């Protein structure tokens, strides 16, 4: 099962290496990872998407807690939360399919941020389902390049 784990860490040198190393050495797979400063000075929030059964997720959570720089670990999966990821997708276009690509971009409320003779770059923000649906529709035109930020997530309301 896909899990969304939010980790708050003290912003010390090497902290990302410690986390990445922990996943590698214990044989956990990271599907996506996004890091940035949090609301608290000196602390960063890392959103990690991992796939695994309940035992694996429990071990991941506990092993993350063991790292001295880890402040808080929350598995957001069972909670009400919002997930977002931004993707920049460069699609191959020609004069005949150009308008179809624009149409798809409009339906997904995404932004066209760059156009050339043979390519169009689209910026889309959304949760995993929406983004995957969008990418699937673009596939037939020929995707030249995809850049993703990794998923970030936040709990709805004031928590609990």
């Amino acid at each position, binding site marked *: 099962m896909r899990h969304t784990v939010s980790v708050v860490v003290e912003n010390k040198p*090497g902290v990302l290496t410690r986390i990445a*190393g922990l996943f590698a050495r214990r044989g956990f797979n990271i599907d996506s990872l996004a890091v940035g400063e949090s609301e608290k000075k000196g602390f960063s929030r890392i959103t990690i998407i991992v796939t695994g059964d309940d035992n694996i997720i429990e071990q991941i959570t*506990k092993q993350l807690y063991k790292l001295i720089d880890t402040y808080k670990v929350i598995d957001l999966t069972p909670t009400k939360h919002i997930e977002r990821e931004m993707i920049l997708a460069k699609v191959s276009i020609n004069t005949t399919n150009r308008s179809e690509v624009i149409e798809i971009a409009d339906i997904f409320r995404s932004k066209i941020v760059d156009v050339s003779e043979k390519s169009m770059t689209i910026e889309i923000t959304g949760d995993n389902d929406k983004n995957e649906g969008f990418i699937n529709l673009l596939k037939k035109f020929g995707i030249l390049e995809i850049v993703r930020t990794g998923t970030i997530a936040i709990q709805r309301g004031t928590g609990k």
Partner: protein
Amino acid sequence: MAAEKMKGSKILLECLKKEGVTDIFGYPGGYVIEIYDDLYDEKDIKHYLVRHEQAAAHAADGYSRSSGKVGVCLATSGPGATNLVTGLATAHMDSIPMVAITGQVPTPSIGSDFFQEADITGITMPITKHNFLVKDLNDLAKTVKHAFHIARTGRPGPVLIDIPKDLTINKAVFNYPDKIDLPTYNPTIKGSSKQIKSAVELIKSCKKPVVIAGGGIISSHASQELRDFIKLSQLPVASTLMALGVYPYDGEFSLKMPGMHGTAFANHTIHESDLIIAIGMRFDDRITGKLATFAPNSKIIHIDIDPAEIGKNVAPTIPIVGDAKSVLSDMNAYIIEHPIDRKEEWLEEVNAYRAKYPLSYDKSSDVINPQYALEVLNEITKGDAIITTEVGTHQMWAAQYINHQNPKHWVSSGGLGTMGYGFPAAMGAQVANPGKTVVNVAGDGSIQMNIQELSTVSNYNLPVKNIILNNMYLGMVRQWQELFYNNRYSAVDMEGKQPDFVKVAEAYDVMGLRATKPEEVRPVLEKALNHDGPVMVDIVVNREENVYPMVPGGGVLNKMMGQEGRLR
């Protein structure tokens, strides 16, 4: 008026003294030369010059295991630091508190492949509890304080501090913090009283409970609390390799050691139990065999300070996160109010296993059985000596045949299984316990991995007794090759290529002795143990003696090879 500034290397030594450090093991080099310059005048810290940095790490580890204090080692950057790696991994696997200090190239040169540069914090990240690269001299004192705190609290472990050379030269105001400022680090000490109550009630309702005592009991100095718990609960207790001595080996309720080379009576008891009370142990594969068939009818109460150990290998019925000493005290207090009835039938069953499957071997009158040599050693030392070991068959025999009486008297590499550990660990144990007899039980393979330390024990007249059970084989691997690889003895035969250990000892000005016949064992060991100085004893033993019982890797505990002490 501005406070007086102090050189970085001096600040480091002042910090160590604040932490109560009196002994360190180390080896100098270019990027720690400032620290050594200050050590030259230092009166309160004694530095022991080892002959290989690996030995410094193991010595700090042995110092810690035998005293409960944090062991300290010091090495230069690059190769000095990388030579500590095996020692750090050994301490990490066995949760031993130590602090390793390494020199690093000057701050501006880090990352430029400078002479003797190695990214030691990167290298040791997975084998330390935590590590630090100090980049600002103003952070040094705080870092040392945190390092010692992290090493000794919670689930203990090794911590490395990497200090660039410019920091040791520069000056700053020395200000040792009196408070720990680690908002992200708060180990749980006290166990949930609700869980503790449930645990005791579960013990009461079960018919066949067994206690497995682990190294956590030694880390938390809870041997007395365990003994009280056993007295109150009247339950059989097995001690893992990490916990030998927490309960008297020949005590009424003792099952001795469980697992791959544990006693058959411990393994049968655990297999037949309906409840395991696991305290400060982590269900290592050497204890459980195949997890799916481990203690098939047992519920589990798992007490551990590290939440990540709970549920890692086995799913507990009642998990209790907390320090062994605190949890056992609370449990004992509850049991005094709510006594547990003695499980008479179960104890009879356990006694029957004990009577049917004692530890035994075929005693020879022509060649020395290694087990016999250890029985004699045990008779002479009366459970009072600190025994360190290397890794292999000799280690398992020492675990089996020494009558372990006290905690912190058994110093052995469990999790990592590090050959070459025992001799330097014995040096550390001897430094921490100057009045004690310290014996390293070794194999002829293992002793050669850090044999250069004969120079160190000679140098400081550390009266460590090395006792080599010499079968001229890498015996544990040979045993596996005999049992599972059709007697194909690939790369294990040391005969004819082995040094004369007596001459080697004498070359280092260490007493060398040898026994080749059973009747020589006692006088030789007596002479060795009575000598006021280091000794190396070469005991030439039966070459093809195997360690039994044996649960083959991935096997089931009650299906042992040689549970009568021999095959068939």
